[in-house]
């Protein structure tokens, strides 16, 4: 059996990152505090500016100018919004469950912040104090941590919906939990091929694996990428999956009863989630902080300027995906609830499962034939991926109407349904005529 399975522990260790501890505890402490302040400040400011970016991008897409009155080009708009929300009256409706009602915004906000802690932002720096890395907590279970915490965010929404004691809020919360449950599974499943390639659940290891293979996971595992991206849209409640707050049906869904800063916190949480999801996509599928055509992934670290460059490169990727989130939002209309469910359960879940099998067999076969895990491995995966992507996006996708998102509808089936509705309409017309006489 062992001869059939050449996946030895040494191989995993080869792919995994050699964790060299920083030189001393004091350096570690100081550097961690610096990183804490730096990253969470950047994060909060970015989330605030995200609201401005959203409004600007929506405006430009709709041929408008967007906010441009507060500060140059409206840059101080987030500050004005924040001030407004702080000054507004905090309304506490009589029928709400007060402790839960107050707790809910924090519950949705904190998980969004927590995920940020495990994302590696840059190549480790080689300084005279030893190796300094750009991740707050390089957890050995980075992946699982993210999956666990990201899905905790739904508690805030469900609690808000429940505590508001309002039918629209409750429906919003219900939808959110249903959506989260459906997409959490395909999201987790879509990550397994990434793990199979990396052979490790640390996020740094995924970045290094992509650097070694010389091909981004988005190109080697496009279907995983696609499923993960769509699922993260659903997980962050962004359009086209913003059913929990669908304005046209549910007023504002789970935050109908919220006002002032508590509402604002939900809003910020949404943007934080978006940034986190973008960081995840960038790390897992777009090479993370790895600068192309360099050896910055080698253990021991790189010079400071290169390390800083890799941080900038990583943030550029994040910003692109934040933009992409907004771009999609202002392009696609909202899904119907049954379409959302059938997309998650009937398409993504089987697709992800089948893809795991395919990728696992491919990895096993490539290892069996002794293909080293470098550019050759990446090339083989890329070649397989091209075939599969064409199969899924061109052949399988064709003929799939959006209306029942899961199934192909045959023409005779459509005609049958049309006939049925016509007959029904006729019957109603007869009825009304009879009543009129």
């Amino acid at each position, binding site marked *: 059996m062992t001869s059939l399975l050449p996946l030895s522990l040494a191989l995993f260790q080869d792919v995994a990152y050699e964790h060299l501890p920083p030189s001393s505890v004091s350096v570690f402490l100081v550097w961690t505090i610096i990183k804490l302040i730096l990253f969470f400040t950047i994060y909060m400011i970015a989330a605030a500016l995200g609201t401005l970016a959203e409004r600007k991008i929506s405006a*430009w*897409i709709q*041929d408008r100018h967007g906010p441009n009155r507060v500060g140059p080009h409206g840059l101080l708009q987030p500050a004005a919004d924040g001030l407004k929300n702080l000054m507004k009256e905090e309304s506490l409706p009589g029928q709400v469950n007060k402790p839960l009602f107050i707790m809910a915004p924090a519950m949705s906000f904190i998980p969004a912040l927590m995920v940020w802690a495990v994302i590696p932002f840059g190549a480790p720096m080689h300084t005279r104090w030893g190796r300094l890395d750009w991740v707050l907590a390089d957890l050995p279970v980075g992946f699982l941590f993210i999956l666990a915490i990201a899905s905790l965010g739904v508690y805030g929404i469900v609690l808000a919906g429940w505590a508001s004691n309002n039918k629209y809020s409750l429906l919003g919360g219900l939808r959110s939990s249903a959506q989260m449950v459906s997409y959490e599974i395909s999201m987790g499943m879509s990550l397994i091929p990434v793990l199979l390639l990396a052979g490790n659940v640390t996020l740094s290891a995924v970045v290094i694996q992509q650097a070694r293979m010389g091909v981004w996971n988005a190109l080697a595992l496009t279907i995983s990428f696609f499923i993960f991206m769509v699922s993260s849209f659903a997980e962050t409640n962004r359009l086209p999956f913003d059913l929990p707050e669908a304005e046209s049906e549910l007023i504002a869904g789970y935050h109908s009863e919220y006002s002032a800063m508590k509402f604002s916190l939900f809003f910020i949480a949404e943007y934080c989630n978006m940034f986190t999801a973008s960081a995840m996509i960038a790390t897992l599928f777009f090479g993370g902080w790895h600068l192309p055509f360099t050896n910055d992934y080698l253990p021991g670290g790189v010079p400071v300027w290169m390390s800083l460059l890799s941080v900038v490169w990583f943030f550029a990727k994040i910003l692109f995906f934040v933009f992409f989130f907004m771009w999609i939002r202002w*392009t*696609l209309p909202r899904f119907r609830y049954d379409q959302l469910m059938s997309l998650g359960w009937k398409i993504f879940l089987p697709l992800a499962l089948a893809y795991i099998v395919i990728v696992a067999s491919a990895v096993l076969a490539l290892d069996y034939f002794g293909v080293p895990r470098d550019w050759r491995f990446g090339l083989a995966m890329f070649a397989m991926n091209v075939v599969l992507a064409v199969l899924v996006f061109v052949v399988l*996708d064709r003929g799939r109407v959006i*209306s029942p998102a899961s199934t192909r509808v045959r*023409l005779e089936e459509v005609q049958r349904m049309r006939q049925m*509705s016509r007959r029904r309409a006729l019957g109603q017309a007869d009825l009304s005529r009879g009543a009129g006489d």
Partner: protein
Amino acid sequence: MAINVKVLERPMGEVSYVRATLKGLAHTFKHLIDPHKVTVQYPEEKWPISPRWRGTHRMLTDENGKAKCVACGLCPTICPSNCIKLVPGEDENGNRYPLIFEIDEFRCIFCGYCQEVCPEEAIHVGRHYENAEYSREGFVYDLERLTAQTHPVSELWDPADPKGE
């Protein structure tokens, strides 16, 4: 699937959600980078208004700076919203003039009848619309304020030239 859902006929061999999405993304991106924006930046730029626009009133004056009004009482009579208050007076030469002439711009419906009916072409509705006030009392324009207005007056509808060309 529910029975009563409306089903549209689609060319089944050609539809594809992914490609439709990409097409949509391309379309929105085109608008995103399009420098032409439709917004009018209001306080700085304004839409041109029609020469027949009926807005804030204006009382024209004669060469002595006195209101042309002869207090004939036609405008308060024809006013459908009863917003003109006129108290006539007469000087020693027997010329009638308004002692009080007030228009409540808040009640006014800007029909322009006062301008049409005025025999002296004294009262006019004007090409002007920015008349916000902090109180309701501020909307009652007296004679002094009506004569002090400087905006252009609106043109009457000409039956010979119905489109105003």
